[in-house]
């Protein structure tokens, strides 16, 4: 515990700060300022701690978080600062999974709730929903005990015609044994999205089983005999891989395939791209042109567009040509996950619901072994394995929600919350790198699943404009991928920089209104029931009711547009309140009024603030 610590505003030029006390707990860093406002930072969220050179006011300490929060403390005494620095370094870097927050987090659930929570998302159920197993596709037990592929789940769906020897043979010809399996099945088109890793083709190697495997996939689609093979890497990278005995499919060796590169860059490029983006967006007193050229140089939006473009290509193959598609990259757990999941999201409106999005993440990311632990640096490990692949996926989805405001049941807050917990290590879902690892960690017994918690507070994550019947006939989304449609995701990268956000949020307002609407509907039902009940009692009242119902129209016309302020100025209102006693609506109104984000005058970030000019 250190007192008299200053928290600096990241973008303010006048070095405004709040003073308070800094605490370190076992799991969190806590800062309480003089007005008792608390700032909690989970140790697992800390990406880097940096001590800056001593200044006159104390020792500055900058903490960068994985959720893009950056806090800047000034500790008066250097000793304290050093201590904090060291403790944070230790606390934020964990060597063993068992020490992660998830294993100590206790949300006060009993065992059966915990089990139920883990059962909320059932992938077998999901494949059933897609329509498999069926005449062409079946569940394979080839990977029981993770024998063939350690990073795949146990239950995999393959074409019926793919026998076990074919599977085994194909897996030996694929990097990390990740042979082609079903990711998504499109019932109406009878076409499938399959995924795998790169073939170990080198310059000329062939594998008959692998060729059979691909043939089996294309034959499993009765509506189109040829299939696409999408290599999501840039051609140059794929060719370079050949020297290492890996590579890509030779169209001549496989019958009826159409091979296509789509050019998404690898994890290292993405990592440094994000680094550049953060450098630019974190600059103080940034000019518009520096921002735009920084945005361009980082290449970040170009990468986002590349992923969406790839997904659009995939979707066209399925929706227009009814052709099955096999997607792979190098190991088939980064770019492949991005493209497969985004493609499915465009094809199937189920994944645009709150529950469906959870299923999609469970399926294409968690179960197929996206290396969350390595990519998000859950344990102290190789910094070269870190990469914002999943963040990119969320950003792609966000861009789609911007283009189709009514197509998604969830809102931006939902995406941000998932991003938060991918890094928080508070829940078991994202721990480790694959199913096998999670099984060994006994994640399902020792930790909790994130999804029931999100579902319980889904009110917060609902898009009030969501229209389930959006595009009734075809559920397919066809996004426009012209460059100007992709925007910088301010709410992700500046989530904690309040000075940058609009002061009033339309989303919150509409969310509140539609909540209020539901409540009002209930109120009306209740009132009507009461009136009905009374009507049964006396006839006199009935006459009155008729008179009454003739009146409301003129009142409605007079209502001013600023309806939120009026606290029901009806003469009879007070009487109603006293009679009914606990009227739910009353509390809620005041709550709502206070919730409406009023314009709070905030200091404008002027580069040449008045303060500086006058002195």
């Amino acid at each position, binding site marked *: 515990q250190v007192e008299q610590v200053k928290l600096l505003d990241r973008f303010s030029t006048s070095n405004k700060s709040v003073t308070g006390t800094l605490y370190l707990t076992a799991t969190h860093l806590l800062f309480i300022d003089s007005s008792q406002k608390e700032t909690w930072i989970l140790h697992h969220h800390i990406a880097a701690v940096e001590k800056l050179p001593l200044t006159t006011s104390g020792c500055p300490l900058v903490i960068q978080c994985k959720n893009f929060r950056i806090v800047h403390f000034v500790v008066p005494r250097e000793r304290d600062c050093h201590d904090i620095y060291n403790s944070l370094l230790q606390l934020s870097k964990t060597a063993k999974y068992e020490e992660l927050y998830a294993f100590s987090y206790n949300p006060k659930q009993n065992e059966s709730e915990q089990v139920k929570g883990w059962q909320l998302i059932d992938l077998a159920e999901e494949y059933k929903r897609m329509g498999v197993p069926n005449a062409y596709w079946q569940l394979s037990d080839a990977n029981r005990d993770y024998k063939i592929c350690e990073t795949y789940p146990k239950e995999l769906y393959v074409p019926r015609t793919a026998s076990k020897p074919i599977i085994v043979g194909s897996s030996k010809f694929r990097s990390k044994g990740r042979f082609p399996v079903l990711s998504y099945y499109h019932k109406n088109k009878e076409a499938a999205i399959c995924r795998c890793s790169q073939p170990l083709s080198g310059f000329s190697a062939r594998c008959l089983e692998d060729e059979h495997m691909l043939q089996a996939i294309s034959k499993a689609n009765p509506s189109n005999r040829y299939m696409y093979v999408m290599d999501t890497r840039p051609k140059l990278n794929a060719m370079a891989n050949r020297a290492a005995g890996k590579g890509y499919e030779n169209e001549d060796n496989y019958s009826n395939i159409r091979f296509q590169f789509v050019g998404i860059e690898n994890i290292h490029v993405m990592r440094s791209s994000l680094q550049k983006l953060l450098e630019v*967006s974190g600059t103080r007193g940034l*000019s*518009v*042109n*520096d*921002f735009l*050229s920084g945005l361009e140089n980082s290449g970040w*939006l170009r990468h986002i*567009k590349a992923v969406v473009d790839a997904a659009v290509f995939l979707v066209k193959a399925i929706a227009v040509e009814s052709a099955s598609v096999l997607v792979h990259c190098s190991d088939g757990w980064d770019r492949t996950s991005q493209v497969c999941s985004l493609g499915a999201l465009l094809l199937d409106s189920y994944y645009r619901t709150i529950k469906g999005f959870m299923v999609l993440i469970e399926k294409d990311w968690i179960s197929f072994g996206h290396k969350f632990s390595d990519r998000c640096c859950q344990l102290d490990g190789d910094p070269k394995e870190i990469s914002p692949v999943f963040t990119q996926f969320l950003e792609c989805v966000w861009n789609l929600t911007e*283009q189709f405001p*009514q197509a998604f049941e969830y809102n931006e807050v939902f995406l941000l919350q998932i991003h938060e917990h991918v890094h928080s290590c508070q829940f078991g879902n994202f721990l480790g790198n694959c199913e096998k690892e999670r099984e060994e960690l006994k994640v399902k017994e020792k930790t909790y699943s994130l999804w029931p918690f999100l579902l319980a507070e889904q009110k917060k994550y609902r898009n*009030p*404009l969501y229209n389930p019947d959006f595009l009734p006939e075809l559920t397919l989304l066809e996004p*426009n991928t*012209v*460059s*100007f449609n992709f*925007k910088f995701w*301010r709410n992700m990268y*500046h989530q904690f920089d309040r000075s940058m956000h*609009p*002061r*009033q949020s*339309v989303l919150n*307002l*509409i969310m509140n*209104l539609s909540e*209020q*609407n539901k409540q*009002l*509907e209930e*109120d*009306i039902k209740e*009132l009507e029931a009461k*009136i009905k009940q009374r009507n049964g009692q*006396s006839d006199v*009242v009935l006459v*009155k*009711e008729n008179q*009454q119902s003739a*009146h*409301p129209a003129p*009142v409605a016309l007079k*209502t001013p547009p*600023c*309806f*939120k302020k009026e606290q*029901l100025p*009806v003469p009879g*209102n007070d*009487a*109603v309140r006293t*009679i009914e006693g606990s009227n739910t609506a009353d509390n809620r109104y005041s709550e709502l009024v206070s919730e409406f984000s*009023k*314009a709070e005058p*905030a200091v*404008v*970030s002027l580069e040449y603030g*008045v303060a500086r000019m*006058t002195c």
Partner: protein
Amino acid sequence: RFVGSLGTIVIKCKDLRIIQLDIPGMEECLNIASSIEVLSTLDSVTLLYPFFYRPMFEVLEDGWRSFLPDQEFELLSSATDEWRLSCINKEFSVCPSYPPVVIVPKCITDEELRKVAMFRYGSRFPVLSYYHRKNGMIMMRSSQPLTGTNGRRCKEDEKLINASLRPAKRGYIIDTRSLNVAQQARAKGGGFEQEVHYPQWRRIHKGIERFNILQESLIKLVEACNDQSHNMDRWLSKLEASNWLTHVKEILTTACLAAQCIDREGASVLVHGTEGTDSTLQVTSLAQIILDPRCRTIRGFESLIVREWLQAGHPFQQRCAQSAYSNSKQKWEAPVFLLFLDCVWQILRQFPCSFEFNEQFLIMLFEHAYASQFGTFLGNNESERAKLKLPQKTMSLWSWVNRKEELSKFRNPIYEANSLVIWPAVAPQSLQLWAGVFLRWNRPSQYLEEAHEEMVKIINYNKELQERVKVLRRHLAEMEAAERAQGNL
């Protein structure tokens, strides 16, 4: 504005739309093309549409008389008596680009004003632009003083500017040119106020671009937006090269600065650039939107445009002649007003509940400023408008807009009056390209519009439900009262 070839006419409109017509006959095509050419480049103002337009609606209120200076002054005099209405410019004899009546400090006589006018470029002497009721601070605007290289002075000018300050108060002169540009202006007889001669005032320079730089910026931006084949890097670098958002940021920052001086520092402000008809007006009008809740209502915003743009003599006819697709370089063309609207849109986006009008209202104003069936934006100042007899011969835009049917389209459904000062964020991350204008014809907007409709539906449904609950409650209460009465019997 059009390129004709082989039976195809491409019409590039001022609202940035591009229409392509395929016409079968070559000769007909040429005829049509030349007709369009002639009709779209009429020389005489009096041949323009507003002089022939006959409204198809009933005029309830003459927009030409909707916003008179007298009303504005009445409002002012309810708060302070330090100012007076001067009719010195009655026949536009003192300053051709000022309206006949202006508001000046009470202690300055018309005679003194005449002398000040001689000392200011284009005779635009300092006049009141805004009075901040909260603390009595004021904002004035003018053109540059004619100090020249030898530092001319004008006692009356110094008196006027100092008279606008209350005792022991300070003021800021915001010069919308960079110090460099302002210094260069001295060689041409212009210049800036020496702080020694205006002891209570501090001068701040903020460089806002003008004329052809803005026009080129607009042309580049529109070009970038119209080319859908750009990859991401190219798009971003084109957007950057256009500098449009830089201008938006500059203007917003300066307006915030002016507002900050007034509201936070408790100081008065004088704003001027060179002529005081462009960047000056951008700053004074935006500062008022930030400070004054009234300017965020439909009526108040209209009044602001009349006061700070039309009457203040922004030369609309010169600035808004051709828009972004002009081939011939027009020396006076510049999207000054469009930039102002863009800035308003940026604030509107950041405070979506604090404006009575919506984005459509701003887009409508943009369209009418460039091409309109109404006479409101014709001419370069009030004097020209009087000469053209616009109020007699044409219809005012306000007569049309302020009818119930039209207003309903421009109302912001989530408006809630907000009496606070609203400070917009000006970080580049907080600014956005105004898609409603620049991508309007290039992006699919169907889904966005549907979403907007849904939003309006939710809001209206909410109102409806509240009404019903109210009625039912009252009803129930009456029934209960009746019951009690019966019980008492």
